[in-house]
C-alpha cells in the first residue's frame, strides 16, 4: 500500500511529507509504543504505528529504516518532533483513530483494499 492509501483510509493529517512519500510501498507494519521492541524487529522498511509521540519515536524509526511514522489517537505532536521529522526526512502522519481501529483499517488495506468500503 501507498502513503496516499494510508492517509485516505485513516483520514490522516500529514505533518511531514518525506521526499519518498509517493514512491514508498509499505509492506511491513510494526505496532508498538515500546521503542526497544521496535528495535528488535528485522522487518524491512516498516511503517511504525505508535501512540508514543516523542523525538525518540522518530529516532527509532530512522534507525530501523522505517517508511515513516503513523501516530494514533490524535496525539499532540511537539514542534521538536516536527523539526526532527524534517531533519531525518521521515514521513510523519497523525490519525485520530485508536490504535485498534488504525490496525483494523491498515489490515483491510493490506488485504488488497477490496473491503475498503465495508
Amino acid at each position, binding site marked *: 500500500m501507498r502513503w496516499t492509501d494510508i492517509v485516505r483510509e485513516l483520514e490522516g493529517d500529514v505533518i511531514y511529507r518525506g521526499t519518498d512519500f509517493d514512491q514508498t510501498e509499505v509492506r511491513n507494519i510494526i505496532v508498538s509504543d515500546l521503542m*526497544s521492541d521496535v528495535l528488535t524487529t528485522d522487518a524491512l522498511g516498516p511503517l511504525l504505528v505508535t501512540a508514543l509521540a516523542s523525538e525518540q*519515536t522518530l529516532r527509532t524509526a*530512522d534507525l530501523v529504516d522505517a517508511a515513516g511514522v503513523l501516530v494514533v489517537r490524535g496525539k499532540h505532536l511537539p514542534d521538536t518532533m516536527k523539526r526532527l521529522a524534517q531533519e531525518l526526512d521521515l514521513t510523519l502522519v497523525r490519525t485520530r483513530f485508536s490504535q485498534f481501529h488504525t490496525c483494523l483499517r491498515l489490515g483491510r488495506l493490506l488485504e488488497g483494499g477490496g473491503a475498503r468500503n465495508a
Partner: protein
Amino acid sequence: MKILPLDPEQSPLLIFDLLFKLKVRDVMSTQLVTITPEATLRSAQQRMKERGITGLPVVESDRLLGIVSMHDILTALDLGYINDPIDRHMPRNIVVLDEEMPLSLGITYFDKYRFGRFPVLNREKRLVGILTTRDISAGLLKELFKEVDRLQTGHEDTQAILQRRVQRTSTTRTYDFENAGRAAHEIKKLLVARAVDPAVVRRVAVAAYELEMNQIVHSNGGTLRLTLTPRVAELVAHDQGPGIADVAQAMQEGFTTANDWIKSLGFGAGMGLPNVQRVSDKFEIHSALRVGTTVRSIIFLSNPPKVKK
C-alpha cells in the same frame, strides 16, 4: 570548419584535452639526424637508409637551411644529379613549427601541407627537433598511460580511505533525551557511506542506540566509542557509574530498574542489554558498583555469522 583532423564526436575527450595541453616540444624527436649543405644528395640518401628515416634537415651551425626528403632523392636519381651537393637543389621555402605551439595546432599542419615531417625551431630559430605523425602517436600514448596511471592512483587513494580505521567517540549525559539517538544516527550514516550491508548497518545502529539510551537513562554519563575497520564495527560504551549490582539479572529480558517517566518515553522495558547482545557477534559486559559499566559489542561487517533471534 574542421580545426582538428579528429572528430570530437568519435574521439575520447581525454585525447582532446591532451592535444590542447601538450606542446609540440613535448612529443617531438630531439635525437636529430642532420646533414650539412655541402654534402651530396647521395650521402643524404645513404644516411637516410642507414637511419631508417625519410627526411633529413639540412643544417649549418644549428641553423636550418632546408630539408631533404625521399621525394627529392627520387627526383635526383631520375634527373641524374644525385652526386651534386645538397644546397644546389634543396627546397628552401620550408614550413617549420615553433616548439611552443600547442600540439593541436601542430597536427593541423599535417593536414594542411601534406608533408610527413616538420622541423621544429625554438625562439632563437635554432633547430631543436623534428615532428612526425609517429612522434605524435607515441607522445599521445605516453601521456595517455600517464593519465591512466594517475587515475588508478587516485582510485587507490579512495580505496585507502575506505580501508582506513575510523574512530568516533560521543559523550552522553544523564537524562539528556533531547540528544538521545544522535550518536547512533551518525554511526548509521558513517556505515551507510561506506556501503556496508544494510542489514549489518541496522544491527550496529540498534546496538549503538540501546547503549546510548542505557547511559542516558541509567548512568552518570559516559562515552560511546565506535571503531571501524574494514571487517569489524566495535562499540565500546563506558560510563562513570553507578554500576550494575547484578549483571546476570540486567541481562534478562524484561528486568528493569527504569522509572515510569523513562517508560513513558518508550524505553526502560528491560530490553536494552539483551537487544545489544542479540545483534552482536561478540558481546562483553563488565560492571562494578560505584565505578561504572563497560559494554563491548563487536559486529562483523562482511559475512556476518547467523544472529540468534
